[in-house]
């Protein structure tokens, strides 16, 4: 009898699955950092759908999506790599691949998932289906700024040694190209959406360093080497994130380190085109997908505030305080709304980016990163 009921239940579930397939294109996941869970959210309904638990230490966690927008690969601080099925709302696989990890990336073909580690320092690459180890690339250094690049490549940088390595998986066994002298203590990096330019921010010296990945043999290109010289640096209570460095028309905008401003850089010449003074040390400077606005949040103790900058005038056009500890922002793919995680309010807040009106508050436990599935189709995200 019991089996019959279970069988019936399974049939019913399958039937309903057939009747209403789950479309994932407007879904997303919010990291709940203290609880070790992720919250499945629906962008169009502005609602939380489900909580998926058991992902370990998710402080500073991030994730990437499979090309079909069904699976999320969640990178936890404790070295955990968890594969979550957002259709069935379950964890389908989980490995603890290192002691202390910092982020990850998925290859352009969706077959390889790479994780960068602080301890032991290096990058480990896994089969995205099985999470079996494909390659172990020790670097002897805390490894940061890991991104995917076109051609089944991963690019990453070493905090301690100041090298950038390109790991090319086009032929199966990885071919490693090492580029020394990127600068002192690179703390994060990004790749432009077209996969051509890799830029790493430096903590240990002024400026940034770029690589042209279209070059036969990429060489470090110094960007703003005199930036901040002669000015007193302010203490940095939280390292900025560079994922959000965004192209606004012809310019990049990025957070300064040790200064309360964002920098504007010409994307072609990599020279400075302006600075905008901000409320505090910027953490994320994220462009709305159309590039018209840049939204900035700040390090402790000014992390209750967001400023919005117009990318044409470079002026601050709006400032507001969503609440204590604003950690992350994610735009809807066309930019009409932005979702903001307010950790100490235990809420995700949704705003209209034209009127700045708050549209919704969604309960979440110490929310940090917000990731919509549209990232699946973007290089570097």
């Amino acid at each position: 009898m019991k089996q019959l009921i279970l069988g019936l239940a399974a049939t019913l579930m399958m039937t309903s699955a057939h009747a209403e397939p789950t479309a994932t294109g407007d879904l997303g996941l919010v990291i709940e950092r203290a609880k070790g869970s992720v919250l499945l959210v629906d962008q169009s309904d502005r609602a939380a759908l489900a909580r998926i638990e058991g992902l370990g230490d998710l402080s500073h966690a991030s994730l990437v999506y499979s090309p079909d927008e069904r699976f999320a690969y969640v990178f936890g601080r404790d070295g955990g790599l968890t594969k979550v099925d957002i259709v069935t709302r379950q964890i389908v696989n989980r490995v603890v691949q290192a002691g202390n990890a910092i982020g990850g990336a998925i290859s352009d073909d969706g077959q390889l998932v790479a994780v960068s580690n602080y301890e032991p320092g290096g990058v480990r690459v896994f089969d995205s289906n099985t999470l079996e180890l494909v390659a172990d690339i020790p670097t002897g250094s805390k490894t940061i700024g890991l991104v995917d690049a076109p051609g089944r490549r991963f690019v990453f940088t070493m905090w301690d040694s100041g090298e950038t390595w390109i790991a090319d998986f086009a032929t199966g066994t990885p071919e490693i190209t090492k580029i020394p002298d990127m600068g002192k203590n690179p703390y994060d990096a990004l790749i432009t959406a077209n996969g051509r330019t890799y830029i790493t921010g430096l903590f240990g010296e002024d400026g940034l360093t770029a690589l042209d990945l279209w070059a036969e043999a990429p060489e470090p290109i110094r960007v703003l080497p005199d930036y901040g010289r002669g000015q007193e640096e302010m203490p940095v209570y939280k390292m900025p994130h560079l994922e959000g460095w965004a192209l606004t028309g012809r310019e990049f905008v990025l957070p300064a380190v040790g200064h309360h401003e964002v920098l504007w850089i010409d994307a072609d010449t990599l020279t400075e085109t302006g600075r905008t003074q901000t409320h505090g040390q910027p953490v994320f400077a994220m462009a709305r997908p159309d590039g018209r606005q840049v939204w900035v949040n700040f390090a402790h103790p000014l992390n209750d505030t967001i400023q919005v900058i117009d990318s044409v005038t470079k002026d601050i056009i709006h400032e507001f305080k969503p609440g204590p500890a604003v950690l992350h922002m994610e735009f809807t793919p066309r930019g009409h709304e932005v979702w903001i995680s307010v950790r100490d309010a235990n809420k995700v807040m949704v705003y209209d980016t034209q009127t700045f009106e708050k549209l919704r508050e969604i309960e979440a436990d110490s929310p940090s990163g917000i990731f919509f599935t549209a990232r699946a189709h973007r290089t570097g995200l």
Partner: protein
Amino acid sequence: MARLGHRSVAPGRQSSQPLTSVLLAGAVVIATSAFAADTLNPDALKRLVHQDCGSCHGLSLKGGLGPDLRSQTLQHYDQDVLTGVILDGIPDTAMPPWRPLITEEEAEWIARYLLQQEAQ
């Protein structure tokens, strides 16, 4: 009180109140050091350690860009040395001085807390 004289280490900082007054913003705008000492808020300090120190050292203090801060790792440090590192940072590293944000008593509390945590 020597502490107040040291608050100028970071010119241009916009917020130089001790943590307690930041958290009580609006209640007491100019917190005296005596007030701060009398009102050490362990919950707020624990939150600071795990959430804000944690942005480099990890939420569970196992380390990140910054080193492991668990008690077993820190045992060979004197409490006074740790207090000094918290207040003044370590030059040429990513460890910033927290003196602009917290009082000496709060730094001492944090150093003691780090050394006394249960082994994890």
